[in-house]
C-alpha cells in the first residue's frame, strides 16, 4: 500500500491531520506529542488535537474485557472519523485502531472502524510514506550513537521497519546501530509485565543485553510502552542507556531528560 503512495503525485500542500496523542504520551511524556506536532508541521501538515481524547482501550481489550472496550472504541471512532488523516505516535495504539477495532465491532460500527482504519497511520510511516517529509540533505552525520527497538505491533501489524530508520538517517544523519534479535518482544505486553513480572523481567534483560552489546548510548523506538519498560528495567539493573522516543530524536529534542532520568 505504501509503495503505491510513493508513485503518486505529491500530496496537496496542507494535509489536515488529527493527532491521537495516546494515553502514555499524554500522561508520562507530553514531549512525544509536541515533537510529533512539530514533525507533522515540518512535513507541511495542519495539525489539530481533538480535545476529548483519552485512551484507545488497549488495556481492557488485551485483558479480554471486550465489553468495556466496545464503547471506548466507539468513542474514539466518533471523535476521529471526521479527520482527513489520523496520526498516532505509537505502533500498538495505531494497530489497535487499524486492526483490532474492526475485529471487535460489528455492523455499522465495523464499517466506521474500517473507514477510520484506512486513514489512520503510525507517526513514522505517515511522515515517510504519506506526508513524505523532506530529507535534510545537508544534515551532517550525527555523532549520536543510537539503536532502535521495533515495537511488535508496528512490526507485525503495520509492517513498519525501514521507515523510522530512514527518517533518522534523512532528518538527523543518524545511522541506526542494529540490535540482534530485533524482532523479539521486549517483555512489556501491556498488563503482562505486571501480571507476570518475573518472566517479563527476563525478557527485558535479554533485550537490554542486546542493546548494551551494540555499544549505543541511546535506545529509541516508536512506542512508549516498550520504552518505559526497557528504561525502567535498565535503571533497576544499573545499565547505562538513554531511552528516548523516536519522535523526540527526529525533531532534535535533546533537552528533555531521557525516560526515567531526573533533571
Amino acid at each position: 500500500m505504501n509503495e503505491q503512495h510513493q508513485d503518486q503525485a505529491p500530496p496537496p500542500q496542507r494535509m489536515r491531520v488529527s493527532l491521537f496523542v495516546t494515553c502514555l504520551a499524554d500522561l508520562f511524556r507530553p514531549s512525544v506529542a509536541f515533537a510529533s506536532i512539530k514533525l507533522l508541521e515540518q512535513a507541511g501538515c495542519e495539525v489539530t488535537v481533538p480535545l476529548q481524547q483519552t485512551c484507545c482501550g488497549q488495556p481492557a481489550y488485551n485483558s479480554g474485557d471486550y465489553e468495556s472496550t466496545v464503547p471506548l472504541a466507539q468513542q474514539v471512532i466518533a471523535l476521529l472519523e471526521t479527520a482527513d488523516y489520523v496520526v498516532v505516535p505509537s505502533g500498538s495504539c495505531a494497530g489497535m485502531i487499524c486492526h483490532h477495532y474492526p475485529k471487535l465491532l460489528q455492523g455499522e460500527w465495523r464499517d466506521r472502524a474500517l473507514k477510520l482504519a484506512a486513514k489512520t497511520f503510525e507517526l513514522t510511516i505517515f511522515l515517510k510514506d504519506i506526508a513524505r517529509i523532506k530529507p535534510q540533505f545537508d544534515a551532517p552525520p550525527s555523532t549520536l550513537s543510537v539503536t532502535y527497538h521495533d515495537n511488535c505491533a508496528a512490526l507485525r501489524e503495520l509492517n513498519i521497519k525501514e521507515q523510522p530508520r530512514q527518517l533518522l538517517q534523512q532528518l538527523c544523519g543518524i545511522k541506526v546501530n542494529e540490535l540482534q534479535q530485533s524482532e523479539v518482544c521486549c517483555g512489556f505486553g501491556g498488563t503482562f509485565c505486571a501480571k507476570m513480572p518475573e518472566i517479563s523481567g527476563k525478557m527485558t534483560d535479554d533485550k537490554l543485553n542486546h542493546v548494551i552489546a551494540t555499544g549505543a548510548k541511546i535506545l529509541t523506538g516508536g512506542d512508549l510502552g516498550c520504552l518505559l519498560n526497557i528504561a525502567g528495567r535498565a535503571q533497576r539493573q544499573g545499565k547505562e542507556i538513554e531511552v528516548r522516543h523516536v519522535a523526540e530524536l527526529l525533531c532534535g529534542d535533546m533537552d528533555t531528560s531521557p525516560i526515567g532520568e531526573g533533571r
Partner: protein
Amino acid sequence: MEQHSDTFLANASKALKNSGQAERRDKIGLLAPQIRAAAIHSFDGFDELRQHVKEVRQHSLNNLDYYLSQFEKEAVQNGNQVHFARDSEEFNSLILDICQQHDARRIAKGKSMVTEETGLNSFLQGAGLNVRETDLGEYIVQQAGETPSHIVRPALHKSANDIRELFQQKHDLGARKLDKTSDLVVEARNVLRKDFLQAEVGVIGANALIAENGYSMLVTNEGNGDLCANLPKVLIVCTTIDRVLPRAEDASAMSRLLARSATGQPQSCYTSFYSGPRREGDIDGPLETHFVLLDNERSNILSSDYREILECIRCAACLDHCPIYTSVGGHAYGSIYPGPIGSVLTPLLTSLEQSHLLPNACTSCGRCAEVCPADIPLPDLLRDLRHEEGIKKLSPQRWRYGLKLHAWLARHPPLYQTLTAIGIRILHRLGRKRGRFSRLPFADGWTSQRDFPAPQENTFMQLYKAKMKQNNER
C-alpha cells in the same frame, strides 16, 4: 489429561533460576528461527502453500463427518480395525484390550502426542505391560521419569551431560564413557534395537489420515516410528478424529509446511504412509493393524469459536518463536502441550478453571501467528480465552475492577483529564529529582522488576489547552 498449569508462575520462577536449561532454551530461541527462516526463504511460494493447506484443512473440518466416515470405510477395506474413543479413558482401555488379546508384554512406541495426552504409558504399565518409547528424545524423557518439554524436541531441557549420567544409571555401560553425542545416540540405538525386535505390539501416531485411500501418514527423522510400524506383529495407529485430509496429495502438501516449520528441512527423512496389515506376498510387516481415533473434546472445539486450533499441524514453530516459551520452557506450562498452541489447547482440553493463567502468558507480540504454518491467529484465540476468564471471574478481582474503572474513566474525558492531571502532578513532584520510583503503591507488579519512570510535570492535554488559550489571547 494430567496437568498442573495452576502453578504456572511458580513453575516459571523455578525454570528461570535453572541457568543451564535457560541457556539451552536461549539457544533454541536464537537458532530455530534462523533455520526456519532459511528454509522458508528458499521457497518462494510458501505463503501461497500455507493458504492452500489452510483452505484444504478448513474444507476437511467443515465436512469432517463425511471425510472421517470415508476414511473409516477405506481403512476397514484395507484390512484395519477402526476404533473410536470419546475420552482418554476409553482410548487407553481400547489399546490395553488389543494388547491383552495378543498376550503382549512388550510395546514399542513411536512418538505420539495423543498418547501423551491420554497418559497411555502409565496406564499400560499399570496393567503390567512393558512400554518402550523409541524416539530418542522420548526415550530419554521416559528413562528420566519426566514429561516432554517440547512438542518436537522432547528432551530439550536436558544437557548431553544429564543424558550421559542418566545412561550411566540406567544402562550397563561397563568401561564405556560415551564422551561424544554420537556415542550417546549409538548407545540408545543399540538398546532400543532389541526392543524393536522383541516387541509384540507397535504403537505409532499419525500426522494425517487420508480419506480417499485409508492410509495414515507418519513423518519422522529417526525412523523409529517405521521400525515400530513394521517389526511387531500388531500395529496400533493412534491419532485424533480431526486429522483427516481428503487426498494423499493434501498430506504431502502439509508435510511441505511441516518439515520446513519444525526443523527447516524440505522434507523429513522418513515420510511413510501405512494402509494396514501384511498383503499377500509380503515377507514382513504386522499381521493385524488397528486405528484408535480419539475425540477428547475435538468435536466440541469444532463447534466452538476456537475451531481454528484444530488446524494445527504440531510443528512447534510457535514454541520456538515465543519469547515466553523460550524463557520458561515447556514444563512450566504444566501440560504436555506448551507454548502458544498449548496455552490455547490446554484450557480447551481440560478446563479454563485449571489453566486460566496460560492464556495470560502472552504479550500479544504476534510472532507465533506470523510463523504458524497453519495460519492460526493464536494471539486472538488467547485473548478470547482471557475474555472467557473475565466472564468466569477467574482473573484477580483487583485487575478486573482496575481495568473496568480505567475504561469507565476513559469514557468520561473531562473527568479523566482532571483526575490524571492531578495524579500526574503528584507523581512528578515525588519523583522529579531521581526521575523514577523504585516502589509505587498499586504498581507492585511493575516495580517488582523495574523502576517506574516519573512523568513530566503536566499532562499533554493540560499543556496543549494552555497553549491554545495563550494563542487565542494573542
